[in-house]
């Protein structure tokens, strides 16, 4: 068996297709001011995948609690959180269209007033005593995930003095290999703040912005209870490798 493609129980564990860095923000994006001193000045060093990058942490369903994907109830004390009740769901697949099963999906967000439950957030809007603002789940065999929450509010932040973040939910995805890891943010269709946001403006194209905007999915609304949004995510593609690279090839 080739070392580059390891087939186990019908699944393949080849290397990952080279990341198309043009689909992502550059490191240095001066209109998002914090990036200026936190962006490497040297080019990233490109490496061939080794086992270290083709593999990654494996998570089990029994590590998560039954309410971990229910942000409406997972921090409720003596009442329910304030705000618009929503369900968010979608599929995680790779660049070649294959589902990414058993991936750890972690989400975090501000409450309906735009305030985070974080010791460093000093915004005027109050903390909601019944809302924590984080949740997590594993994708199923088909790469499907679902959670319930409160729609987060927009908030001002110190970039320019009147910059506002649109409503957004942060996402972290483990994928199925270290090289497949992705951290991103989901926005909501129709939010007028999207067009103004310096962090969204770090993105290289309209198409990539569009890929971060969840669409209303009224067909899956819960009647008289919650609206539904659909948000699909594409991770790095796991390759079927038929030919191994020749190590001596390539010029610098």
């Amino acid at each position, binding site marked *: 068996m080739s070392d580059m493609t390891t087939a186990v129980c019908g699944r393949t564990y080849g290397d990952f297709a080279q990341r198309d860095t043009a689909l992502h923000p550059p490191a240095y994006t001066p209109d998002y001011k914090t990036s200026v001193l936190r962006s490497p000045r040297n080019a990233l060093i490109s490496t*061939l995948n080794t086992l270290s990058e083709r593999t990654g*942490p494996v998570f089990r369903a029994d590590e998560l609690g039954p309410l971990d994907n229910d942000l409406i109830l997972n*921090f409720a004390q003596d009442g329910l959180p304030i705000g618009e009740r929503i369900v968010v769901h979608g599929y995680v697949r790779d*660049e070649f269209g294959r589902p990414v099963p058993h991936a750890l999906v972690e989400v975090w967000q501000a409450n309906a007033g735009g305030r985070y439950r974080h010791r460093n957030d000093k915004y005027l809007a109050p903390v909601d005593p019944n809302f924590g603002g*984080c949740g997590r789940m594993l994708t199923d065999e088909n790469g499907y995930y679902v959670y319930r929450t409160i729609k987060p509010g927009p908030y001002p932040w110190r970039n320019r003095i009147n910059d506002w973040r649109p409503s957004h939910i942060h996402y972290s995805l483990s994928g199925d290999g*270290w090289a497949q890891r992705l951290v991103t943010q989901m926005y909501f269709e129709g939010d007028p703040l999207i067009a103004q946001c310096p962090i969204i403006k770090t993105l290289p194209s309209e198409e990539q912005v569009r890929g971060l905007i969840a669409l209303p999915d009224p067909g899956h609304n819960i009647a008289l209870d919650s609206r539904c949004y659909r948000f699909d995510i594409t991770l790095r593609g796991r390759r079927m490798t038929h030919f191994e690279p020749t190590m001596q090839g390539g010029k610098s």
Partner: protein
Amino acid sequence: MNRISLVPTVPFGPVRLPETASQTGGPYVHIGLAPKQAGFDIFENNFGHVLATAHTRGQPIAIEGRVFDGSGTLVRDVLVEIWQANADGKYAHPGDARDLPIDPSFRGWGRAGADFETGVFRFETIKPGSVPAADGVPQAPHVCLLLLARGINVGLHTRLYFGDEEEANRRDPVLNGIEWAVRRQTLIAQRSERNGEGAAVYSLDIRLQDTPDGGRETVFFDI
């Protein structure tokens, strides 16, 4: 009669979909990934910085580090994740099909936020064994790191190598793939022993850019 499946791997759609774009983890990354550090207790089971138990095979070690920005200021809001092989050089993932023992007490993954005061992140783990590169050449023992923080638009990947593995480091194909030999040193953690602490401590300072004190920008990888 045998039937040949003609169902293609990708039934519909384009050959290659665009990867979803990365965005910064932001200043409150701890809420989602380390809620106790954000200041509240919500999950029964928390992922954290302790990778090894008393049962884990191998040499117990601690990894400590700090992250500096281009002004030389500590990045105190950084969140670091690590991924490593076990003491036998085996990854706890089905993609590592080599005939080596899995250690049931060792996942090989952890995460730690830098301390909001000191800026220090810390992991308690074991020293990993050697893992081969794509062509079978052994890699020096190493730990993969991912940095997430406000101002970092795409999570930064780097590696930690061990300062007391000089011979293995000299032969490591990834280190040797860094054209500028002077930059390789940015990935080498230095070993120290501390009184009262059983495990050796490996320390690595990471610089997002060159710093005014003459520190060199750490090598980051496009993996």
